[in-house]
């Protein structure tokens, strides 16, 4: 079980004092078709990137707010990981990328008719963004527009 009190003391102090941000999402969106017909996209903060993409920059003060587009047909085993956080155990996603970016599982669920399909593009961020201003102003809205362009019906997000 993950709780703030389980983390390293330095993280506890930081996370308890940190002024968490919110974005007003109201009135909210509705799923307009049954799940079995829905096109599903994934956004993860596991810092995955493809070998032909630059890694995330772990030296940026406040956190690298950029993203990498992960096409649906990507071989998950080729994805690399560039996470700056040592607050989590990286071994899980290192041994199975589906743990955070479950493209193989979505394909199974689509084949079984539980979801409609897997969207053509998925998105990877590096979650350690202590200064999220540019994420909120620029990169997250860019990703939202691409998800709209891809006509994603539902988006599943995973932290690490």
């Amino acid at each position: 079980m993950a709780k703030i009190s389980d983390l390293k003391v330095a993280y506890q102090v930081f996370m308890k004092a940190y002024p968490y941000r919110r974005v007003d999402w109201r009135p909210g969106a509705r799923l307009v078709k049954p799940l079995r017909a829905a096109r599903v996209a994934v956004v993860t903060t596991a810092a995955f990137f493809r070998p032909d993409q630059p890694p995330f920059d772990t030296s940026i003060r406040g956190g690298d707010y950029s993203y990498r587009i992960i096409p649906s047909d990507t071989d998950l085993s080729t994805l690399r990981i560039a996470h700056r956080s040592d607050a989590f155990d990286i071994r899980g996603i290192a041994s199975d990328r589906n743990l955070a970016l479950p493209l193989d599982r979505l394909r199974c669920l689509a084949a079984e008719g539980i979801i409609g399909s897997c969207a053509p593009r998925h998105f990877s961020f590096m979650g350690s963004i202590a200064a999220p201003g540019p994420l909120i102003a620029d990169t997250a809205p860019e990703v939202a527009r691409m998800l709209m362009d891809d006509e994603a019906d539902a988006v599943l997000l995973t932290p690490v």
Partner: protein
Amino acid sequence: MCHQSVGLIQSIVERAGIPTTSVTLLREITERVAPPRALFVDFPLGYPLGVPNDSPLQTEMIPATLGLLAEGVPPAIIQDFTAAR
């Protein structure tokens, strides 16, 4: 900080008009960021879909997370995941 980032991106995608749902491993953070829907899963940080290479568990958790979309437009909700096994 991953949980804040997920909550913020989620809220921005939802605001753009696509319904969103997420997994959370740290309920305390997700409560503060208050995205529309989240499934709390009782696993360590770094393990959002439970267990590596456990396809049955992962393919159970994904529909459980997406199932929150059937709730329509809620106030921000965080629901607990319970595995069938």
